[in-house]
């Protein structure tokens, strides 16, 4: 094997440390983590090797590294780590670096993932929405379309979502190429891999392998499928209004599919988010409370759900000022979710899927 030149990068080390991996220097390479990890493949397993790379600041080792994304943050490794090095958390922090690597513009990653900038980020989004000029307390029945017309929402939210998706897709493209370069794998069954990946993601198979933090399965499962339900509800809206040019389905009665999906999604997401928060606290003694990176996503999801539900309740209760204000917050957070899609932890949607797919594509899947 050719001689590799190792280039330690103290900045990278500090970024990982400050990004939730503050424990990483404690690792002494015993490999307990790799053994207790039920998700890793046997060949070149993770996360032990990622830990030493991170300790040395070997940034380039993480370019095109699928393994940090194969990690599902069960934190079995963290629970059993004899040194308190928390590999699960460290890998989370490295994933943040990976997102930064692939989601352009990288500056946005910094802004989103910074305690200092995040209020500004939200204010900017609020400002953007305010441009509609319809944001005021309307008299009479509380009708949110008065407040923000469907057209307006479409004009603002659709491009933002498309931007988010585009960034993610471009990132995945780059990531895919890097993974190929890093592993030397040039060909494989892409179609089959995608199908298998979809099956795996839909079944949440990997999450069922977690031992210590088995509750994560339910939480993630709920959040994941709730998003799908909400997506379907939204898609139905788009179908009715924009394609079929029918009346907005949201105004129909409660028994309609749109409402049904909406309610299921809302309830599931709310429960899932609460479970996630609960899990964080339940295991905090051993696993820590998690990083900013983790909490940003949890917070956005929670606020979206809480504000959505509160807006609905206050609307029914007829408290217009409160209902409209809350709805506004709701809109800001939904928009942030779309915009931050590839820049926040939600970016895992792209990269983890790609990594799982690549593992199948390259034939490294554990038999």
């Amino acid at each position, binding site marked *: 094997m050719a*001689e590799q*030149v*190792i280039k*330690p990068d*103290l900045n990278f080390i500090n970024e990982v440390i400050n990004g939730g991996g503050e424990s990483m220097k*404690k690792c002494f390479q015993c490999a307990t983590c790799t053994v207790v990890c039920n998700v890793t493949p046997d060949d070149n397993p993770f996360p032990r*090797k990622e830990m*030493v790379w991170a300790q*040395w600041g070997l940034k380039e080792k993480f370019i095109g590294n699928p393994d940090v994304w194969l990690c599902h943050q069960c934190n079995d490794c963290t629970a059993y780590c004899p040194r308190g090095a928390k590999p699960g958390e460290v890998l989370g922090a490295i994933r943040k670096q990976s997102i930064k690597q692939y989601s352009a513009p990288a500056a946005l990653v910094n802004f989103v993932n910074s305690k200092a900038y995040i209020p500004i980020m939200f204010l900017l989004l609020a400002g953007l929405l305010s441009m509609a000029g319809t944001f005021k307390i309307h008299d009479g029945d509380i009708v949110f379309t008065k407040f923000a017309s469907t057209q307006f929402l479409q004009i603002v939210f659709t491009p933002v979502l498309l931007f988010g998706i585009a960034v993610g897709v471009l990132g995945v493209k780059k990531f895919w190429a890097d993974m190929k370069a890093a592993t030397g794998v040039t060909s494989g069954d892409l179609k089959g891999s995608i199908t298998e990946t979809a099956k795996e993601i839909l079944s949440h198979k990997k999450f069922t392998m977690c031992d210590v933090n088995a509750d994560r399965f339910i939480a993630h499962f709920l959040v994941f499928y709730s998003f799908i339900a909400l997506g379907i509800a939204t898609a139905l809206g788009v179908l009715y209004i924009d394609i079929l040019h029918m009346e907005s389905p949201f105004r129909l009665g409660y028994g309609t599919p749109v409402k049904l999906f909406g309610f299921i999604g809302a309830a599931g997401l709310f429960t899932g988010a609460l479970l996630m928060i609960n899990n964080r606290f339940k295991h905090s003694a051993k696993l820590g409370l998690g990083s900013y990176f983790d909490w940003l996503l949890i917070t956005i999801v929670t606020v979206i759900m809480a504000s959505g539900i509160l807006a609905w309740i206050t609307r029914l209760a007829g408290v217009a000022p409160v209902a409209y204000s809350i709805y506004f917050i709701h809109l800001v957070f939904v928009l942030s979710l779309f915009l931050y899609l590839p820049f926040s932890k939600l970016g895992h949607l792209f990269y983890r899927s790609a990594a799982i797919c690549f593992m199948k594509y390259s034939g490294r899947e554990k038999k």
Partner: protein
Amino acid sequence: MEKKFGVYFCKGCGIGESVSFEKLKPRVSGKGKVPVDCIKEHPVLCSPEGLEFIKNDIKEGTNTIIIGACSPRVKYAEFDFPGTLTERVNLREFVAWTAEPMSADAQSLADDYMVMGILKAQKGGMPEPNILPDLSKTILVIGGGMSGLTSAIETANAGYQVVLVEKEAELGGWGAKLYKETPRQYPFDKLEEPGIFARIKEVESHPNIKVFKSSVLEKTDGQPGLLDITIKTNGNSESMRVGAVIMAAGWKPYDASKLEYLGYGKPNVITNVQMEEMAKKGQIIRPSDGKEAKKVAFIQCAGSRDANHLPYCSSFCCATSLKQAKYVREKNGEALAMVFYKDIRTPGQTELFYKSMQNDPGIMLTKAEVTGISDAGNGNLFVEADNTLLGEKIKVEADLVVLATGIVPATRAPQEYLDGLTEAQKKGDVAKNSYLEATPKPDFILNLTYRQGPELPSLEGASGFADSNFICFQYETRRTGIYAAGCVRQPMTMADAADDAAGAAMKAIQCVEHVAKGIAVHPRAWDTTFPDPMMIKCTSCKRCTEECPFGAIDEDEKGTPFYRLNRCRRCGTCMGACPERIVSFKDFSVDIVGSMIKSIEVDEDEFRIIVLACENDAYPALDSAAIKRIKINPKVRIIPVRCLGSTNLVWVTDAFSKGIDGLVLLGCKYGENYQCHFVKGSELANYRFSKVKETLDKLQLESDRCQLLQISISEYDNLPKLINDFVERVEEIGPNPFKEF
């Protein structure tokens, strides 16, 4: 003292059911030449009544007591009768528990053992300690580093006078050259200020300690309690008498010039010692251009754990490099410290230090086999390594490389020089003289005037360390009264050296105290007997002077052996070596054992086998087998000896001329990991035995009748079988042809 005998036969623990006292009494009386009425029996001798029974006789004037009961290893407190000569005969373990009860074999065994016991008491005398005059209890400490300073302080605080000799102009050794120290106290997470200066101050101001700086030991003459030393200071010599010596001469770093493959010689490759000096001066800079070092690589085991250099781990380097990595980081928050290790060795609670030092963004470690250091331009270097955690073959750029060099004991150079001299001497005078001319003489430490050489013999195969051979007894040396401490003994950390120094101090004190009472030092630390050679009969063959494991015997100008009693450990090796059989102890001599052998009843139809068993391991093993009731062939008679080294060949003659059919020497394992507490007793016995075997063959007396068995104390389960197998082999050979004479 006129001996009045009392012979007691205990019937407890099955002895009474195995052996008939009535049969025993007349036989023992006849052969042992003691009046029948002094041979008594008791149901349980160790009971209060039994002891009272004996004590009543003592009141009546009985002063020589033979107790036929259990092993001397038990009931020692009960059968302790001060002022008497008491001999224990092991009828329980060696007869009742191992032979067929009430058989003729058992009876004859008991008879023989009792007679042997009586003979031993008849021939032996009451030990009286031999206390030499003009003894000194002052302790000499060689070396003023951590070990030496600590030894001096501990000894002085225990109330003894101390003389400390330091080669350098200042005290402190390596400890005074450190910038910071690895922590000694829980939670072991911070570097500490060097603690040595407080000790230097304590030594220099202690009323019981006299310090000689810039001084060496020119001569050490005499024996413990009477060691006459000459200290040379800047050309001036001063003589004085001391009682014992603590040798804490310390260590030197491994010669880095031998580590060219690790880049030593390149300007920016330094050793851990240089790193320490640099940190102490203030900045960590590159020697080539004086620029601050920002990427520092530490190469662990530079020379250590390497068959081409030092075959041992130097014990301190892992913690030291972690400490120095912290220096790099403390001096510059942007700098990197990269550690390349084989294994990180921070044993015990030092692990907590490892964890703490490692938890720094700029300290990084990998397991690696460093294969070389090459130039990377601008004075920078590439560390090249295989099998790392970062990849199979890697290359890392550094601007400064620190080689974690190890420990070489100060004893190594003299040892190597003397070993070379011995080799040359074997080839004759020409070779010897050319060796002396061609080889530079290293600094000797002790300069003993002993016949067996001027220095403390280091342990064989121990790379020059003056270590103990014994796990259980860390301060055993082959020169009584001279104890090694610190890194001359083993590679160790400074904290360990301080502990070690206290231990050596303890042994030095014990030595002068024992010498003052005329008692041996470890391992026979209760023994007041001593070798008492009948010098008129000495032929000056010098076997004793050569074979004494402790170099206790010098020679006078005429070449006559001269016993230095306080160096003696009472093993009896000289007694075994002497062809004239002139060496005796009060309770152990060629004559005593010879008489015991000759007293054994030999019948024409019966085989008789003698086992000479070392009393340290073999005897307890035989006892242990008996406790398990493992049968030993009753044709065997066991005679304990102090050490197989005390086996005199005349006993072989005694045995075979008497008609004994076979002889076993039962001793401990010898070789590299020898277990003999007197260095090489069983090995010496084997050597002597091999000589006698030739003679036996010449006499048409099959040499297979003699065997040396090496066993350890724990092999009792297999021991009876070994002996029984030997008996069978002798039976196959047939009876001793001398039997009929």
